[in-house]
Every structure is written in C-alpha cells, then in structure tokens.
C-alpha cells in the first residue's frame, strides 16, 4: 500500500457559532489521499469545497480535527511553513501571481518555494533557460516573453504561469481551487490539459475543486461529492471511469435528499 500523503481526521469549521446564522462549513471531514492520487471535488453551493482546500492550505484554521501532510501534523502550521509542501492555485490568477513582476521573476519566486531567500540573483541565465523550456511546453508562446510583466498577460496565460509556479518545485500536494472558473471554455480546455500534463509528469498528489461535473468525471482517479460540509460519497476506480453526469446527479439526490443546486454547476461539458 502506498503511504498516505494527506490525511484529514474529523476536520471541522463552523462560522457564526452561537448565532442564528450558524454555518457548519466543514462537518468532521475525514479523508485520506495516497501518494499520486488525483482527487476531484464537486458539490452544491456552500458545500465546503473551498473551505476544505483553505484548511489544508492554511488560509484558515479549523476548529477541530487534525490535518497531516506526509506524516507531519500541519493543522496549525502557519501558511509560510506549509509552503514547501503545497502548491495552490485559486480561481483568480491575480491571487497567485505578482502582476508588476515579470514572468521570469514570478517563476524564480516559485523555484525558491519553501527555501531560504538569500542574496543571490533571482533570474540567472541558467534559470531563464529552464523557464523558457518549461514555458515552451505550455504551448502559449510565453517562452518568448520571459521579461513581460504578468499583468500584461491574458487570464489564461496568467493561469498557465500560476500553474507552472505551483508545480515547478515539485510540491507534495497540489490544490486547485476552481482554477478554470474565470476562463473562457476554450482557454479552460487548454489550461486543464496543461494541468493534466503537469500532474502526470510530476506524479503530483492533487485535490481539484471544480463546478464542472464533466471535468470532475473526466479527470483524476477519485471523485468526492460534498454537501453541507460533509463528503457524502466517493467514486473511484472502474465505477468512476464509467460514470456519467446523469448518474452523478442521481447519486447526489439519493445521498443528500435534495437536488444538486449550484448556479454554476455545469451539467454538460
């Protein structure tokens, strides 16, 4: 058995405790990811998908439970301590890149992920050559624009840079939080294909939140359905390969007793 890369034990998060507006964003969630697992997460509005990723990334601290990454308890570790281990991309590429800095400078910062930041030149000729090579593989022509400010790129190009930044230093865990949601369908397809290639090349353990059911079915080896702060079911293996959107909607209804409502859930691809 491959070892558990990520383990959540009864992780809970409640907002507005003691008020009438109490929201149980995460309800004692337990989850284990083996090394190399690519898990897609889907669910209704406010199901707790992003809260789950944020708890793992350290953007917020859970009220209860324990989170272990590669056998280290990271439940309360500050974000900059987990950084060496976790690559993360958000829906908005503005969040995970620096607009006023060049593509090369952004990638150089990502190369230093989790390492000491010293007084060595950040963008060296050797690094530039490596960046050019990696950017060429993206297929968006960015290898010609190493010195261009990231702020001058389109959303898709910027998200591609963010993807390279998240994966360039070989993190133990990759968190994708609806990273295609702001892109037009064509660009989303290109960026998702790149995502798949990078994950395969690095054999990265990945947790991908999406609102696109077809995407959640097509990618990864496991699919989690979340509802009201809980994982209500999981589909993997051959069952996942044979899964259709219709089956997924029906299973959600059976498990939750409600209709899958997310104004952004795409029923078709």
């Amino acid at each position: 058995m491959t070892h558990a890369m990520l383990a959540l034990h009864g992780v809970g998060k409640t907002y507005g405790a003691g008020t009438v507006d109490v929201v149980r964003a995460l309800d004692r969630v337990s989850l284990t990811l083996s090394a190399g697992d690519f898990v897609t997460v889907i669910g209704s509005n406010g199901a707790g998908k992003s809260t789950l990723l944020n708890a793992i990334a350290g953007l917020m601290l859970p009220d209860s439970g324990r989170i272990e990454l590669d056998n280290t308890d990271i439940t309360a570790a500050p974000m900059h301590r987990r950084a060496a281990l976790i690559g993360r991309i958000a829906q908005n590429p503005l969040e995970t890149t620096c607009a006023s800095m060049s593509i090369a400078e952004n990638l150089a910062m990502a190369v230093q992920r989790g390492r000491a930041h010293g007084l060595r030149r950040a963008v060296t000729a050797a690094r530039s050559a490596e960046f050019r090579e990696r950017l060429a593989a993206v297929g968006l022509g960015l290898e010609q624009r190493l010195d261009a400010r990231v702020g001058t790129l389109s959303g898709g190009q910027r998200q591609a840079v963010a993807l390279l930044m998240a994966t360039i230093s070989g993190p133990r865990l990759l968190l994708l939080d609806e990273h295609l949601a702001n892109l037009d369908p064509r660009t989303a397809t290109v960026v998702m294909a790149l995502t798949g290639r990078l994950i395969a090349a690095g054999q990265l353990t990945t947790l991908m939140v999406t609102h696109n059911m077809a995407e959640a079915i097509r990618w990864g080896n496991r699919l989690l359905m979340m509802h009201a702060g809980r994982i209500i079911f999981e589909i993997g293996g051959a069952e996942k390969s044979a899964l259709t959107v219709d089956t997924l909607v029906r299973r959600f209804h059976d498990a939750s007793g409600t209709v899958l409502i997310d104004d952004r859930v795409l029923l078709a691809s």
Partner: protein
Amino acid sequence: MGTQLQALIVNMLEQGALAGFLGLGVLISFRFFRFPDLTAEGSYPLGGAVAAALLVAGIDPVLATLAAIAAGMVAGMATALIHTKLRINNIVAGIIVMTALYTVNLRVMGSANISLLSVRTLFDEATSALGLGVHSETAVTIVLTFVLLALAGAALAWFMHTDLGLAVRATGENQAMIRSLGVNTDRTKLIGLGLSNGAIALSGALVAQDNGFADIGMGIGILVTGAAAVMIGEALFGDGSIERWVIATVVGVLIYRFLVALALRVGLAPVDLKLITAALLLLALALPRLRAKPA
C-alpha cells in the same frame, strides 16, 4: 542672470544629491510596500540628530554617519514590528514611531538644535583629505554625495533583483501569494522598512552635516517631499524596470529641488515651502490621471 542660474543649478545638485537617499527610502516604502510610511518624518531628523550628537562628542564623521543609518534602520524595524507583531495598521504604526521619535530626537540632541560649525563633518574631512580648500567644499559635497548615491542606487537595484529582493517586492504587492511560497512576510517587512528608513536617516545625517546644524523640525513634511520626488520621476520616466525606477527617483529629487529653489528665487517665502510641496505632490499625482483621461 547667468550666475543666478548657475547658483540655482549648484543648489539643485547639492540639495538634490543629499535628498537622493530620502527619495530611495521613500521609493521602498511608498512604491514597493505601497503605503506612506510616516516613520520617515522621525527617522530623517533622527539621522541628523544621531550624526550631530556623535560629531559633537568627538566621534569620527564616518562612524557618526554609519550610526545614523543604523538608528534609522532600527526606527523602520520598530514600525515593522508594531505592524506585524501587534497587527496594527502600517500607517498608524508609522505615526506611533514618528511621534515617539520626536522625543528620542530631542533626547539625543539634548536641545532642539545642535550647531556643527565647530566640528569637522564628513564633507570637511573629505575636502581636506583631497587637499582642497574650503572654497571647494560645495563641489566636494556634490561629487561625494553623488558617488555615495550612485552606490546606494546600484546596491538597491541589485538587491531588488535577488531572491530576497523579489520576496520584499512581492510582499508589498501580493502578500498572500508570497506567503504561500514560504516567505515570512514579517521578516521581509522588517528588512524593507529597515532599509527604507536607514536610507532616509542617511539623508538627514548628510543634510545636517552640509547645513552645519541638526534641528528637531527638519523632518516636517519630509515624507511628502520624498513622495513628490518619487512621483515626479515616475511621471517623467515611467516605472519600466527597477533600474529605471531608481534613476527616475533620483532625477525626480533633483527636479523637485530645482523647482523649490526656483520658487524661492522668484520671491516666495520659505514659510510657503510646504504649500508648494503639497501642490507639487498633487500635480505629480494628478498628472498621470489627467493624461490617462480620454480626450
């Protein structure tokens, strides 16, 4: 008219070079960290006070000037610590340190004003070391200060291209992002504000030695002066690269000093200076916006 213009230009070069470090310091806080760090209003006179007090105590001018830089760095780090450890808004943290420094500066100087006419300053030493007479001191001051400024500018540009420098820049632009890459932003703020206020204190120390006195009120409005210089430089040269930004800031300081000297020459009183500074800052702020407006 010819000699008048010459006097204006000499004044601009001298005052501009001395204030160049102030420009670089404000560039770090105001542009890279994106907030008006009011610590400057205290660290600038702190530099003057520390240098003056040590010179009067018989300390070597080089050491006195280095001590002034160190004092300024400590002041900037105090602001950074108040902001990061106590989670107090960065502008408020600057105001707190600025206010505290008023007392510190008075205590360091022992009075509101110290004369340096009877002690040998950095510029006196440099002039005699070169075997030149007193009449050459202005020229020596300008050349020496420009050499130091060029070194400081080059060092700043070099630093901003290192791994640590990138982390400092990113801290001002996208704190969450650089934190997620493992950078302790409390530390980068400490470094950035330390460097910024060290440079600003150096400006104060050099100005005091050039003027022949340190005064408790020498820092009033100094942040606006620095910000105006940064923005004049930007409005004229843009902010294409770090190198360009650094050079634009120094040129901005020179232009600012020239405009101030010109304003005084055409008959405005020194008491009007702050109003002029405010107007210049407003102009520099408004110019890019007015230009960006569709015709």
